[in-house]
């Protein structure tokens, strides 16, 4: 909502300054968004007179004018306007002036070979009207002011307010003035509005059809006959221009003026174009009409239309139609002032994707009791400016408006705000805002003013009082530092732990969007459901992600293109399995590209590989408190991993839920996404599949029990089938006696010479130590034998001799 202090002063008597005004507007909840000086730079536009006209040597339609701009020398200006004649007083813009219409700076320029020092302006170029045929013709009265600025200097700035959707009353200047006055910023001027005095009947019949969901409940109108539509007078033009509006014609300008002044939208019809009276009814499915925006609309069942016997004239409260619009030659006007229901307006406008000033106001709720005020104000102005005769006001209604009553307990203010004010002050504020009050026992019955559709219950009254008194009066109560419940639950603690644990392994944390490109998503979706966004911002962000990999791969690729080669990134966040709330999982997803120790003088460089990510996954899980002895790993993994170089990890053998996948990314995906890297490996840890221990970290720790007896390390080399897992050998050995086998290390895996083709050799070092005694040679020999026997029996391995 754009206002000026000057216009506010039509309704508000105050001696305060604009600076105070801005502060006070914000204090009462009318946030000042911006402040703009519209007259800045406008002093450059001068009243000037064409003294001589010559033909342009190179162009038939152009003229070269000598212009008197009040200086000694005449200015040479090239002009193409037909109405540019010798002796015309008009408006001159010098080089350096900014033309309002195009917002461009004028420069000295050659036009078809002739230098033009400035420009003669049309009204449209100055945003004064839509008139672009020819330059401005000023009356001879202006001859006295040649050389003076055409625009009078306005000290009033354009103030742009952000009006919250609950305050339709402040979409009119008077509503804003009322709030300011209530808060002590001046006094609201009592407008003794004139009323139409007429004994002519309104002869156009108006009928509101009583239909289900009728969107219009009151329709007021009056006829004004024999008008002469014209340009608006200066005061009106200036008013509209001051808030950034463009004057059009007196009748349109007057309806706009009334709308901005008291938030009462009106519509003017050319009465001669209405066939046999007005019917307000629901549209029929498929009915069509052409609106004033020159677009054709196909209407739906139940949209509220204003029609005559020929068809639709306009969409009530939203936009009029071309068939009955007023023009400069309009003689007889029907002025409409109606009440349309907000829900009906909103539904219709949304379906047709239409946004107008009237719609914006009606959907927020217009004062139903302002119908006559609006008609009186506009009709009398039209008569003053355009002449004609006004009929009596005709009001049709299918519902009678009743003011809302709110019961208000004075204690509520203190209960909500924490402070008290006197009953006297409370009532003064409410009265100034337009409430009427009546005491009933301990409660007050407040009659809500008709312009406040937002106020429905007692807390609304509290807000009214508080914002007028000022939120700064609310006392600050310091919080008590006391915690009764733990801040994070176990799963949140795990989330934060995993987040930092992965980062500590050299990964940069990324946060990417929860949506992604369906083409990328498909690489990682497998058989999961695709979750489409109905209205994505772009086709590259059209689905919710099924895996975090799609985004990480995309961004990894971008970073590689930036010239980085060795990079690890990860994200912890949601992936989606369905379009219902809760059908999502938290995943920690990491991606690592390139080499380790590239170009190091001391370390041997190598590609990142699957055992790097395996380490990251296993270490992270161990750090998070899971027991590595119980981990079970196999080689089954989703199809976006390299089938031979990837795996999955379960926290325990025999459980169903996968704790993590890890491996090389499938070479096809690298190829298809055009990534350039030596190696690309990744992992996914599924937080929701990690069992949350009930025990605290302290409870998890077993009794401290170590052995100081001598330990013995013994190496074994087994030859096994290639497809036997090392994990099976380790499990076999550790199953022998957990209290004796304290450590098993794999120190060599060998295939090749001396080993049969389908076999491999695995060398293990086993540490044996007893908690009870030093083992003697005999004990050790027994265990060694048992190790060999068990491994051979369980895995088909043979000890290498």
């Amino acid at each position: 909502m754009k206002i000026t202090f000057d216009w506010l002063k039509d309704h508000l008597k105050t001696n305060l300054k604009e600076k105070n005004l801005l502060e006070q507007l914000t204090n009462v909840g009318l946030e000042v968004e911006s402040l703009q000086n519209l007259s800045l730079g406008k002093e450059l536009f001068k009243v000037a007179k064409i003294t001589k006209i010559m033909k342009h040597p190179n162009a038939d339609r152009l003229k070269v004018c000598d212009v008197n701009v009040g200086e000694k020398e005449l200015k040479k200006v090239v002009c193409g306007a037909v109405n540019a004649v010798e002796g015309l007083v008009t408006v001159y813009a010098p080089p350096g002036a900014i033309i309002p219409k195009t917002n461009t700076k004028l420069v000295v320029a050659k036009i078809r070979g002739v230098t033009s020092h400035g420009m003669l302006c049309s009204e449209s170029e100055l945003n004064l009207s839509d008139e672009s045929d020819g330059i401005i013709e000023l009356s001879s009265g202006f001859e006295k002011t040649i050389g003076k600025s055409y625009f009078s200097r306005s000290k009033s700035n354009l103030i742009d307010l952000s009006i919250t959707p609950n305050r339709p009353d402040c979409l009119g200047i008077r509503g804003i003035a009322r709030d300011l006055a209530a808060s002590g910023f001046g006094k609201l001027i009592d407008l003794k509005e004139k009323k139409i005095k007429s004994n002519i009947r309104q002869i156009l019949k108006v009928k509101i059809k009583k239909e289900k969901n009728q969107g219009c409940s009151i329709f007021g109108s009056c006829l004004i006959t024999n008008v002469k539509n014209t340009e608006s007078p200066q005061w009106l033009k200036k008013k509209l221009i001051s808030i950034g509006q463009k004057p059009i014609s007196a009748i349109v300008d007057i309806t706009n003026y009334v709308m901005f002044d008291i938030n009462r939208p009106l519509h003017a019809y050319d009465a001669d174009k209405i066939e046999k009276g007005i019917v307000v009814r629901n549209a029929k499915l498929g009915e069509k009409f052409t609106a004033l925006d020159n677009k054709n609309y196909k209407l739906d069942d139940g949209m509220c239309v204003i029609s005559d016997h020929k068809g639709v004239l306009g969409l009530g409260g939203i936009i009029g139609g071309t068939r009955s619009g007023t023009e400069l030659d309009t003689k007889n006007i029907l002025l409409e002032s109606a009440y349309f229901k907000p829900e009906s307006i909103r539904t219709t406008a949304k379906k047709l994707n239409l946004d107008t000033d009237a719609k914006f106001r009606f959907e927020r709720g217009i004062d139903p009791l302002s119908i006559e005020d609006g008609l009186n104000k506009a009709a009398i102005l039209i008569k003053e400016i355009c002449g004609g005769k006004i009929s009596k006001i005709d009001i049709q209604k299918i519902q009678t408006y009743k003011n809302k009553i709110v019961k208000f307990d004075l204690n509520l203010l203190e209960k909500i705000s924490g402070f008290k004010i006197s009953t006297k002050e409370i009532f003064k504020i409410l009265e100034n805002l337009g409430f009427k009050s009546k005491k009933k026992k301990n409660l007050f019955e407040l009659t809500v003013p008709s312009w406040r559709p937002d106020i429905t219950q007692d807390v609304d009254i509290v807000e009214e009082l508080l914002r007028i008194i000022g939120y700064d009066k609310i006392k600050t109560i310091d919080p008590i530092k006391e915690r009764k419940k733990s801040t994070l639950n176990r799963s949140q603690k795990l989330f934060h732990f995993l987040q930092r644990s992965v980062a500590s392994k050299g990964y940069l944390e990324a946060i990417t969007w929860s949506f992604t490109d369906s083409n990328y998503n498909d690489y990682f979706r497998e058989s999961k459901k695709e979750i489409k966004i109905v209205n994505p911002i772009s086709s590259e962000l059209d689905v919710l992600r099924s895996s975090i990999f799609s985004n990480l791969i995309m961004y990894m690729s971008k970073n590689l293109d930036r010239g980085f080669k060795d990079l690890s990134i990860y994200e912890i966040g949601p992936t989606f399995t369905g379009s219902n709330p809760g059908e999502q999982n938290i995943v920690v997803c990491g991606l690592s590209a390139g080499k380790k120790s590239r170009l190091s003088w001391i370390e041997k460089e190598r590609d990142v590989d699957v055992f790097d990510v395996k380490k990251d996954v296993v270490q992270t899980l161990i750090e998070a408190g899971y027991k590595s002895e119980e981990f079970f790993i196999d080689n089954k993994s989703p199809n976006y991993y390299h089938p031979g170089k990837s795996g999955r990890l379960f926290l325990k053998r025999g459980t169903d839920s996968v704790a993590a996948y890890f491996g090389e990314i499938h070479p096809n995906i690298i190829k298809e996404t055009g990534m350039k890297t030596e190696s690309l490996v990744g992992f996914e840890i599924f937080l929701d599949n990690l069992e949350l221990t009930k025990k605290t970290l302290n409870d998890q720790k077993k009794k401290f029990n170590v052995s100081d007896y001598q330990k013995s390390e013994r190496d074994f080399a087994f030859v096994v089938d290639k497809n036997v897992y090392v994990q099976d050998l380790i499990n076999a050995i550790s199953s022998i006696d957990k209290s004796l086998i304290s450590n098993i290390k794999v120190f060599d895996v060998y295939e090749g010479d001396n080993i049969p083709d389908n076999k491999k050799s695995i060398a293990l070092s086993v540490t044996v130590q007893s908690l009870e005694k030093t083992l003697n040679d005999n004990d050790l020999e027994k265990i060694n034998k048992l190790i060999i026997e068990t491994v051979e029996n369980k895995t088909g391995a043979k000890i290498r001799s």
Partner: protein
Amino acid sequence: MSDLKKIKDELLSKLKSKLTLSEINQIKSDLFGKNGLVSSQFKKIGVIAESERKKFASELNIIKDELQDLINSKINEIENSEIREKLQKEKIDITLPERPFVRGKIHPVSQTIDEISSIFSEIGFSVEEGPDVESEYNNFTALNTPDNHPARDMHDTFYLDEKKERLLRTHTSPVQIRTMLKDKPPFKIIAPGRTYRSDSDQTHSPMFHQVEGLHIDKNINMGHLKGCLNYFIKEFFELDKIKMRFRPSHFPFTEPSAEVDIGYEMKDGKIVIGEGDQWLEILGCGMVHPNVLKNVKVDPTKFQGYAFGIGIDRLAMLKYGINDLRAFFDCDYRWLNHFGFDPLDVPTNYRGLSR
């Protein structure tokens, strides 16, 4: 006894020459080994005449100790000279780079969430969460924003079905609804998380982060709200003094509603939060609307309290001097590395939020 003397003299003469560690060890075992010269003398103790035995044994022990001391000090001498020689030879260029390491970083938004949680933890808030996909009811209707309410226009919503029943939450406020439906009052929670609006330009991202706050109890009024936010803002920006302004606003789910501005000034093109004379809007809040409480079966005549919503990304930008919101989600390695935090920098109450 002359045997012993002989042994000693021989040893002394041997020790005079330059010996290696293995040579001296050889000498040691020649003397003290199982059949060494000294060891064999000890064997004699049993066979010599009883009258001389005591004297012999005592002299033998003395000479044995003497010999051992001589050898040990020689060993010591050799070791020391070996170390000296080693130190003479071993010299590296210590300015050569250390072995390679990589450093991970925590995203500034995650760090900021941890900071926020840490601050609110101190005054008794616990963390709640809700799903990113929400029902139209939880996101709007239950929050006193029925269909056809103009306030819905302020939220450009991503929908997941044509009927517009499933959507990506436009704010974290539906967590209020979920929390209150799940439990009984009092409630004292914050809910950080991802939020979505179909809006994308320089200053808007289709995804951003918010933290919701909710405190419902028997006598919680706007003074508590002011105190809570005042405390939070000061703690978060780690400033003793900060100018704050509450001004009336409107949200359908709070009544009265307020927006909060903090003071700032521009210094060398950078925003400095604190006591400047410019105002910067940072959050919206208010007393939870009785209609919302009724929707979640909480009796508004018995319970009342406040709620607030803060843009996390914006807070991070202000605190850490980040200019471009879009860069948060662009995943540029250089940006992540520059603005990211070391994973060991966990914000806590006792160590402080940041170093």
